[in-house]
Protein backbone atom coordinates (compact mmCIF):
# COMPACT_ATOMS: atom_id res chain seq x y z
CA UNK A 1 0.00 0.00 0.00
CA UNK A 2 1.21 3.50 -0.78
CA UNK A 3 0.35 6.44 1.47
CA UNK A 4 1.44 10.05 1.26
CA UNK A 5 1.36 12.67 4.01
CA UNK A 6 0.52 16.28 3.23
CA UNK A 7 2.68 18.98 4.73
CA UNK A 8 1.31 22.49 5.23
CA UNK A 9 3.12 25.36 6.89
CA UNK A 10 2.44 24.70 10.58
CA UNK A 11 1.71 20.99 10.29
CA UNK A 12 3.32 19.35 13.32
CA UNK A 13 2.15 15.75 13.69
CA UNK A 14 3.48 14.52 10.37
CA UNK A 15 6.30 12.54 11.99
CA UNK A 16 3.90 10.88 14.42
CA UNK A 17 1.72 9.88 11.49
CA UNK A 18 4.64 8.62 9.45
CA UNK A 19 5.76 6.41 12.35
CA UNK A 20 2.27 4.98 12.76
CA UNK A 21 1.97 4.18 9.06
CA UNK A 22 5.48 2.77 9.01
CA UNK A 23 4.52 0.43 11.82
CA UNK A 24 1.90 -1.28 9.67
CA UNK A 25 3.48 -0.94 6.23
CA UNK A 26 7.18 -1.14 7.00
CA UNK A 27 7.96 2.00 5.03
CA UNK A 28 7.95 5.67 5.95
CA UNK A 29 5.49 7.39 3.65
CA UNK A 30 6.64 10.37 1.59
CA UNK A 31 5.76 13.92 2.60
CA UNK A 32 3.91 16.00 0.01
CA UNK A 33 4.40 19.76 0.08
CA UNK A 34 1.27 21.94 0.09
CA UNK A 35 2.49 23.95 -2.86
CA UNK A 36 2.49 20.96 -5.23
CA UNK A 37 -0.42 20.83 -7.62
CA UNK A 38 -0.37 17.09 -8.22
CA UNK A 39 -0.16 14.02 -6.02
CA UNK A 40 2.50 11.39 -6.62
CA UNK A 41 1.25 8.68 -8.97
CA UNK A 42 -0.18 5.48 -7.58
CA UNK A 43 -1.15 6.67 -4.10
CA UNK A 44 -3.69 4.55 -2.23
CA UNK A 45 -4.14 6.95 0.61
CA UNK A 46 -3.62 10.65 1.27
CA UNK A 47 -3.20 11.62 4.92
CA UNK A 48 -3.66 15.11 6.33
CA UNK A 49 -1.93 15.04 9.73
CA UNK A 50 -2.47 17.22 12.77
CA UNK A 51 -0.90 20.52 13.62
CA UNK A 52 -1.60 24.20 13.33
CA UNK A 53 -1.56 24.89 9.62
CA UNK A 54 -1.15 28.65 9.19
CA UNK A 55 -1.12 28.95 12.96
CA UNK A 56 -4.82 28.16 13.15
CA UNK A 57 -5.25 31.83 12.40
CA UNK A 58 -8.61 33.04 11.01
CA UNK A 59 -10.26 29.58 11.20
CA UNK A 60 -8.50 26.27 11.72
CA UNK A 61 -7.78 24.72 8.35
CA UNK A 62 -9.21 27.61 6.32
CA UNK A 63 -6.00 28.76 4.69
CA UNK A 64 -4.60 25.27 4.16
CA UNK A 65 -7.84 24.28 2.43
CA UNK A 66 -6.97 26.79 -0.29
CA UNK A 67 -3.55 25.28 -1.01
CA UNK A 68 -2.82 24.07 -4.54
CA UNK A 69 -2.44 20.50 -3.31
CA UNK A 70 -6.01 20.50 -2.01
CA UNK A 71 -7.38 20.79 -5.53
CA UNK A 72 -5.51 17.61 -6.35
CA UNK A 73 -6.82 15.96 -3.20
CA UNK A 74 -10.38 16.92 -4.13
CA UNK A 75 -9.93 15.31 -7.54
CA UNK A 76 -8.36 12.26 -5.95
CA UNK A 77 -11.33 11.91 -3.58
CA UNK A 78 -13.83 12.50 -6.38
CA UNK A 79 -12.29 9.58 -8.24
CA UNK A 80 -12.79 7.38 -5.21
CA UNK A 81 -9.39 7.86 -3.58
CA UNK A 82 -8.95 7.31 0.15
CA UNK A 83 -8.25 10.26 2.41
CA UNK A 84 -7.64 10.40 6.16
CA UNK A 85 -7.65 13.68 8.09
CA UNK A 86 -6.69 13.80 11.73
CA UNK A 87 -7.26 16.84 13.96
CA UNK A 88 -6.07 19.79 11.88
CA UNK A 89 -6.30 17.45 8.90
CA UNK A 90 -9.99 16.93 9.70
CA UNK A 91 -10.45 20.68 9.98
CA UNK A 92 -8.82 21.16 6.58
CA UNK A 93 -11.03 18.49 4.96
CA UNK A 94 -14.08 20.26 6.33
CA UNK A 95 -12.92 23.69 5.19
CA UNK A 96 -12.18 22.19 1.77
CA UNK A 97 -15.71 20.83 1.58
CA UNK A 98 -14.58 17.19 1.44
CA UNK A 99 -16.49 16.45 4.63
CA UNK A 100 -19.66 18.15 5.88
CA UNK A 101 -20.21 20.28 8.98
CA UNK A 102 -17.91 22.58 10.90
CA UNK A 103 -15.48 22.42 13.80
CA UNK A 104 -16.05 25.17 16.34
CA UNK A 105 -14.11 26.17 19.41
CA UNK A 106 -14.32 23.65 22.22
CA UNK A 107 -17.30 24.40 24.41
CA UNK A 108 -14.96 25.14 27.34
CA UNK A 109 -13.01 27.56 25.13
CA UNK A 110 -9.87 25.81 26.31
CA UNK A 111 -7.38 23.66 24.52
CA UNK A 112 -8.08 20.07 25.58
CA UNK A 113 -5.17 17.67 25.79
CA UNK A 114 -6.29 14.47 27.45
CA UNK A 115 -7.33 10.90 27.04
CA UNK A 116 -10.66 10.18 25.43
CA UNK A 117 -12.54 7.04 24.48
CA UNK A 118 -14.25 6.46 21.17
CA UNK A 119 -16.81 3.95 20.08
CA UNK A 120 -16.41 2.52 16.60
CA UNK A 121 -19.89 2.91 15.13
CA UNK A 122 -19.19 0.94 12.01
CA UNK A 123 -16.50 -1.49 11.03
CA UNK A 124 -17.33 -1.66 7.34
CA UNK A 125 -15.05 1.21 6.41
CA UNK A 126 -11.49 0.96 5.10
CA UNK A 127 -10.34 2.66 8.30
CA UNK A 128 -12.13 0.54 10.90
CA UNK A 129 -12.45 -3.00 9.54
CA UNK A 130 -9.97 -4.38 12.05
CA UNK A 131 -11.95 -3.18 15.07
CA UNK A 132 -14.52 -5.49 16.62
CA UNK A 133 -18.07 -4.25 16.02
CA UNK A 134 -18.97 -1.79 18.77
CA UNK A 135 -15.38 -1.58 19.98
CA UNK A 136 -14.43 1.19 22.39
CA UNK A 137 -10.84 2.38 22.29
CA UNK A 138 -8.74 4.94 24.10
CA UNK A 139 -6.94 7.74 22.34
CA UNK A 140 -5.66 11.22 23.15
CA UNK A 141 -7.08 14.47 21.97
CA UNK A 142 -5.18 17.72 21.63
CA UNK A 143 -7.16 20.52 20.11
CA UNK A 144 -8.78 23.88 20.69
CA UNK A 145 -11.38 23.62 17.95
CA UNK A 146 -12.84 20.14 17.85
CA UNK A 147 -16.44 20.91 18.66
CA UNK A 148 -18.17 19.23 15.72
CA UNK A 149 -21.18 21.17 14.53
CA UNK A 150 -23.93 20.26 12.10
CA UNK A 151 -27.42 21.66 12.19
CA UNK A 152 -30.20 19.32 13.26
CA UNK A 153 -31.14 18.31 9.75
CA UNK A 154 -27.60 17.59 8.73
CA UNK A 155 -26.81 15.73 11.92
CA UNK A 156 -29.86 13.55 11.37
CA UNK A 157 -28.81 12.86 7.81
CA UNK A 158 -25.27 11.91 8.87
CA UNK A 159 -26.68 9.52 11.44
CA UNK A 160 -29.20 8.05 9.01
CA UNK A 161 -26.61 7.51 6.34
CA UNK A 162 -24.14 5.97 8.73
CA UNK A 163 -21.50 8.60 8.25
CA UNK A 164 -20.78 8.86 11.96
CA UNK A 165 -17.86 6.48 12.38
CA UNK A 166 -16.49 7.46 15.78
CA UNK A 167 -18.23 8.83 18.83
CA UNK A 168 -16.90 10.05 22.18
CA UNK A 169 -18.00 7.68 24.91
CA UNK A 170 -17.11 6.72 28.46
CA UNK A 171 -14.64 3.85 28.84
CA UNK A 172 -17.74 1.68 29.27
CA UNK A 173 -19.13 2.84 25.95
CA UNK A 174 -21.84 5.32 26.96
CA UNK A 175 -22.18 8.45 24.85
CA UNK A 176 -22.67 10.78 27.80
CA UNK A 177 -22.24 14.50 28.04
CA UNK A 178 -19.27 14.02 30.36
CA UNK A 179 -17.54 11.92 27.71
CA UNK A 180 -18.04 14.68 25.18
CA UNK A 181 -15.40 17.11 26.36
CA UNK A 182 -15.41 19.45 23.40
CA UNK A 183 -19.19 19.74 23.04
CA UNK A 184 -19.64 18.03 19.66
CA UNK A 185 -23.10 17.43 18.26
CA UNK A 186 -24.17 13.86 19.08
CA UNK A 187 -20.71 13.21 20.61
CA UNK A 188 -19.30 13.00 17.10
CA UNK A 189 -15.55 12.38 17.02
CA UNK A 190 -15.15 11.23 13.44
CA UNK A 191 -17.19 11.16 10.26
CA UNK A 192 -16.76 9.75 6.80
CA UNK A 193 -17.89 10.71 3.36
CA UNK A 194 -20.93 9.09 1.76
CA UNK A 195 -18.67 6.59 -0.02
CA UNK A 196 -16.80 5.96 3.29
CA UNK A 197 -13.45 6.62 1.69
CA UNK A 198 -12.77 9.95 3.34
CA UNK A 199 -12.48 9.89 7.12
CA UNK A 200 -11.91 12.79 9.45
CA UNK A 201 -11.45 12.56 13.21
CA UNK A 202 -10.23 14.86 15.95
CA UNK A 203 -8.28 12.52 18.32
CA UNK A 204 -4.83 11.14 17.61
CA UNK A 205 -4.76 7.35 17.29
CA UNK A 206 -1.33 7.76 15.68
CA UNK A 207 -0.05 8.44 19.19
CA UNK A 208 -1.31 5.05 20.45
CA UNK A 209 0.57 2.61 18.27
CA UNK A 210 3.61 1.80 20.40
CA UNK A 211 3.52 -0.28 23.59
CA UNK A 212 6.52 1.64 24.94
CA UNK A 213 4.96 5.06 24.44
CA UNK A 214 1.23 5.18 25.07
CA UNK A 215 -0.12 1.73 24.34
CA UNK A 216 -1.48 0.31 21.11
CA UNK A 217 -5.16 1.19 21.36
CA UNK A 218 -5.00 3.14 18.11
CA UNK A 219 -3.20 0.46 16.14
CA UNK A 220 -6.34 -1.25 14.73
CA UNK A 221 -7.09 1.89 12.75
CA UNK A 222 -3.75 1.63 10.98
CA UNK A 223 -4.05 -2.13 10.63
CA UNK A 224 -7.42 -1.58 9.00
CA UNK A 225 -5.89 0.79 6.50
CA UNK A 226 -3.11 -1.60 5.71
CA UNK A 227 -5.53 -4.54 5.43
CA UNK A 228 -7.79 -2.56 3.10
CA UNK A 229 -4.98 -2.11 0.64
CA UNK A 230 -3.26 -5.44 1.13
CA UNK A 231 -5.01 -6.87 -1.90
CA UNK A 232 -4.45 -3.70 -3.88
CA UNK A 233 -0.73 -4.47 -3.49
Amino acid at each position, binding site marked *: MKAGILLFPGTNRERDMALALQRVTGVKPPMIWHGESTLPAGLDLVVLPGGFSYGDYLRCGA*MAAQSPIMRAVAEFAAKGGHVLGVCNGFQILIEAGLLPGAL*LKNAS*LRFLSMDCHMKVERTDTPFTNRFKPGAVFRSTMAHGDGNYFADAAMAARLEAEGQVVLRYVTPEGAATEAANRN*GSVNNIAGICSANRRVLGLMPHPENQVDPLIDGTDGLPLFESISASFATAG
Partner: protein
Amino acid sequence: MKAYVTIMPKNGVLDPQGKAIGHALAGLGFAGVGEVRAGKVIELELAETDPAKAQAAAEAMAKKLLANTVIESFKVEVR
Protein backbone atom coordinates in the same frame (compact mmCIF):
# COMPACT_ATOMS: atom_id res chain seq x y z
CA MET B 1 -9.05 52.54 0.67
CA LYS B 2 -10.04 50.35 3.53
CA ALA B 3 -12.52 47.51 3.60
CA TYR B 4 -13.89 46.09 6.83
CA VAL B 5 -15.21 42.55 6.69
CA THR B 6 -17.33 41.72 9.70
CA ILE B 7 -17.96 38.03 10.22
CA MET B 8 -20.54 36.74 12.67
CA PRO B 9 -21.74 33.24 13.54
CA LYS B 10 -24.97 32.49 11.68
CA ASN B 11 -28.19 32.37 13.55
CA GLY B 12 -28.67 28.89 14.93
CA VAL B 13 -24.97 28.15 14.99
CA LEU B 14 -23.56 27.54 18.40
CA ASP B 15 -21.42 30.45 19.60
CA PRO B 16 -19.51 29.13 22.61
CA GLN B 17 -17.42 32.26 22.83
CA GLY B 18 -20.38 34.62 22.87
CA LYS B 19 -22.03 32.48 25.47
CA ALA B 20 -18.95 32.47 27.70
CA ILE B 21 -18.58 36.22 27.41
CA GLY B 22 -22.22 36.73 28.38
CA HIS B 23 -21.64 34.52 31.36
CA ALA B 24 -18.51 36.33 32.41
CA LEU B 25 -20.17 39.73 32.07
CA ALA B 26 -22.98 38.62 34.32
CA GLY B 27 -20.41 37.28 36.77
CA LEU B 28 -18.74 40.68 36.81
CA GLY B 29 -22.04 42.25 37.80
CA PHE B 30 -23.02 43.84 34.48
CA ALA B 31 -26.82 43.75 34.45
CA GLY B 32 -29.20 43.85 31.54
CA VAL B 33 -26.97 42.04 29.08
CA GLY B 34 -28.98 39.75 26.83
CA GLU B 35 -27.54 37.71 24.01
CA VAL B 36 -23.86 38.14 23.27
CA ARG B 37 -22.33 37.12 19.98
CA ALA B 38 -18.66 37.04 19.16
CA GLY B 39 -17.42 37.62 15.66
CA LYS B 40 -14.40 38.79 13.77
CA VAL B 41 -13.50 41.86 11.83
CA ILE B 42 -10.83 41.90 9.18
CA GLU B 43 -9.49 45.25 8.12
CA LEU B 44 -8.05 45.26 4.61
CA GLU B 45 -5.93 48.00 3.14
CA LEU B 46 -6.79 47.96 -0.57
CA ALA B 47 -4.97 49.62 -3.45
CA GLU B 48 -8.31 49.90 -5.27
CA THR B 49 -9.72 53.45 -5.22
CA ASP B 50 -13.16 52.80 -6.65
CA PRO B 51 -15.52 52.04 -3.75
CA ALA B 52 -17.75 49.68 -5.72
CA LYS B 53 -14.80 47.71 -6.99
CA ALA B 54 -13.22 47.63 -3.55
CA GLN B 55 -16.50 46.37 -2.15
CA ALA B 56 -16.69 43.63 -4.75
CA ALA B 57 -13.09 42.61 -4.19
CA ALA B 58 -13.53 42.39 -0.42
CA GLU B 59 -16.70 40.38 -0.88
CA ALA B 60 -14.87 37.96 -3.10
CA MET B 61 -12.17 37.57 -0.46
CA ALA B 62 -14.74 37.01 2.23
CA LYS B 63 -16.48 34.31 0.22
CA LYS B 64 -13.30 32.61 -0.78
CA LEU B 65 -11.41 32.71 2.49
CA LEU B 66 -12.37 35.06 5.24
CA ALA B 67 -15.77 33.63 6.13
CA ASN B 68 -17.00 30.07 6.23
CA THR B 69 -20.48 30.52 4.91
CA VAL B 70 -21.59 27.19 6.34
CA ILE B 71 -21.49 28.71 9.80
CA GLU B 72 -20.82 32.40 9.34
CA SER B 73 -22.39 35.38 7.65
CA PHE B 74 -20.42 38.45 6.69
CA LYS B 75 -20.84 42.00 5.63
CA VAL B 76 -18.39 44.34 3.96
CA GLU B 77 -18.05 48.06 4.51
CA VAL B 78 -15.74 50.20 2.49
CA ARG B 79 -14.43 53.52 3.74
